[in-house]
């Protein structure tokens, strides 16, 4: 039983990690129906920025707590800036083009950003400082849940709640929902669609950066390539939940996390990713629009 709880918790943590990245995918897809392949790179750039700013401050003797806060904020600021610039350059000129063109553009950006960081920084793995405070009350159960994992869970929960509130109650949230449903209509009723899209990219990038910093702190290392695999997994999670749906992305992430952890724990980690993909295929066969995705009605 304790083993099950351990696996379940590790699945939950993994799910939270995926959720932080998957949110951005789901939001962007919801608004402009684009698989933002470069989203994983935004996550990586956010984490790198935090490392650089944090290392600068730490070597100047700034206290750790302050380093964490400033590093996190700068990660989010720059990730958001990259997200918005990415949209302006690579996606906006393609808004009325076939979907495949935008997807290839996204793949191109993903390759570009990876190599940009590789050239501007380094191809080696770089140690990542653990900025997360260590909680004393978790000391006894750290085999099940340690401070980093706890912090990731907490952050994901807070982000989820904030997002739900934002989408449901703020003016921007309503504008986002309207744009997701019908872009032309939203424009007609006076919604600034360009602005909504920018905000979507900002929010997606900010959560990705947050995820990047926390996950790198947890794993203790970073390199230019970390975004690719994490991005693919988060993308799978978003599709699993019903791409475009924010609660769906969260649910999909947890389903993915649990499947991988329990599959690795009870069966074999050789096929850890395969379990994730098999679950994906089964769910899509039963529900072709994902767990919480809306069934589309063909318009004739």
């Amino acid at each position, binding site marked *: 039983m304790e083993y099950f709880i351990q696996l379940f918790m590790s699945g939950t943590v993994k799910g939270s990690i995926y959720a932080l990245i998957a949110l951005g995918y789901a939001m962007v897809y919801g608004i402009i129906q684009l*698989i933002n392949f470069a989203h994983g790179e935004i996550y990586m750039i956010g984490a790198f920025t935090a490392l*650089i*700013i944090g290392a600068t401050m730490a070597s100047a003797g700034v206290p750790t707590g302050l380093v964490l806060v400033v590093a996190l904020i700068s990660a989010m600021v720059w990730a958001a800036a*990259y997200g918005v610039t990415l949209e302006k350059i690579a996606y906006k000129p393609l808004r009325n083009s076939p*979907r495949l063109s935008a997807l*290839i553009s996204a793949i191109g950006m993903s390759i570009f950003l990876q190599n940009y960081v590789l050239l501007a920084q380094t191809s080696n793995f770089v140690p990542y400082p653990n900025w997360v405070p260590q909680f004393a009350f978790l000391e006894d159960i750290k085999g099940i849940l340690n401070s980093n994992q706890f912090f990731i869970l907490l952050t994901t929960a807070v982000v989820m709640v904030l997002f739900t509130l934002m989408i449901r109650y703020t003016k921007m949230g309503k504008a986002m929902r309207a744009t997701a449903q019908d872009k032309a209509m939203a424009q007609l009723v006076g919604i600034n669609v360009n602005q909504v899209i920018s905000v979507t990219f900002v929010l997606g990038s900010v959560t990705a950066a947050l995820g990047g910093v926390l996950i790198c702190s947890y794993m203790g290392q970073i390199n230019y390539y970390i975004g690719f695999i994490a991005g693919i997994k988060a993308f799978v999670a978003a599709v699993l939940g019903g791409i475009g749906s924010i609660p769906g992305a969260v649910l999909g992430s947890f389903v993915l996390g649990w499947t991988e952890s329990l599959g690795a724990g009870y069966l074999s980690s050789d096929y850890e990713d395969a379990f994730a993909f098999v679950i994906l295929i089964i769910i899509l066969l039963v529900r072709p629009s994902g767990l919480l995705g809306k069934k589309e009605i063909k318009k004739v």
Partner: protein
Amino acid sequence: MHNIDWKKELKQSTLAALWFIFLTFPLMVMKVAIIQGQATITWRWYNVPVVAVTFFILSFVWRYMLERRNFTQKKESKDILGKLLAQPKYSRPAIIALAVFLLAFPFAFSMYQTNVMISVLIYIILGLGLNIVVGYGGLLHLGYAAFYAMGAYSYGLFFTYMGPKFIEWGINTGLMFWIAIPAAAILSLVFGFIVCLPVIRLRGDYLAIVTLAFGEITRMFLQNEGQITLGPSGVSQIPRPWLLGMKITPVFAAKYVYFIALVLVIISIKVVKNLEDSKIGRAWEAMRDDDIAAQSMGIDLTRAKLASFAVGALWAGFAGVLLAAKTTFINPESFTLWESIIILCVVVLGGMGSIPGVIVGSVLMIMLPEYFRSFAEYRMLIFGLALVLMMIFRQGGIIPRKRKQHTFEVEGEGAVK
């Protein structure tokens, strides 16, 4: 395009330059290094003016290009070369020159050049195959490398398990290549059919992710089931194709495989062209244009999709066997998601649905990285950027699709063109 407001343009470019200085500051100006386990930062202030000037200029170019794109989009592009080549007076010598060039290639150039050319030919076959799925069928396929692997492993494993028997029976193992070519094609076709069967009702991006999943599962199987597939260490010593029982040296093998690949490419082009002009080709075209209308006109979408998946997979089977024969070694690392993406890029970059496009796409994707090794570090950076720019400024690809259209001449008998 007239009346450039210089003041406004200058302001915009300045703003762009400032924005990019801010954007690239942490990554371009600061550099993290680990010395004695301690992260330290080196400052590279000299990058600031570089970034500023670069983006100040690029901003101009960008806006000019975007405007030009919007301006010229409506007009038909002046395809002078295409028009010239359409006339038999010019097309015949061009075709003869090309044929001479292709036939003379392995004799005129070194083994290395020939091997690179074989890679190009393999990618042309892959591109033509994926083009059936993506270009004609309009189905986004992100797991094509799985079928490529299927082809390569059919030959590789056939050799692993049956090779000793062949030696025992005194039969040249090189003959296995000629058995593997049709066998792998059929296996890939069947595999494509089976994979496609359950997922056919998924649409768009859902289909993409499921094909991606199938591709990855296939690779994991190859990696993990070492007892069957020889695992990550791969299959080595795969025999070169048989030719009248001769002992084949690498130099000769390169020429030989080149010609096999060339023949396969020519057959592929011919077959794909025939398919395009046929009943099933028109059904694909209709399905891509408007699936509901196509279905209402009596086209069975399930069958059309199945056909495009299965026929597409078949070419991957051929390509796989060629790869195995060329490298004599295969392992799962050659069939990753990246491989699928590269093949997709060949198709989209060259021009979706366009056969000459796929050819040019393969040549560029394989030859440029191979010959531009001196730019090795910037190669992938430029490649990524090129994909983005191509999509924005030349959406149809390098050679956009130009389908042969059925027309009807009323004069006389009504000759079919």
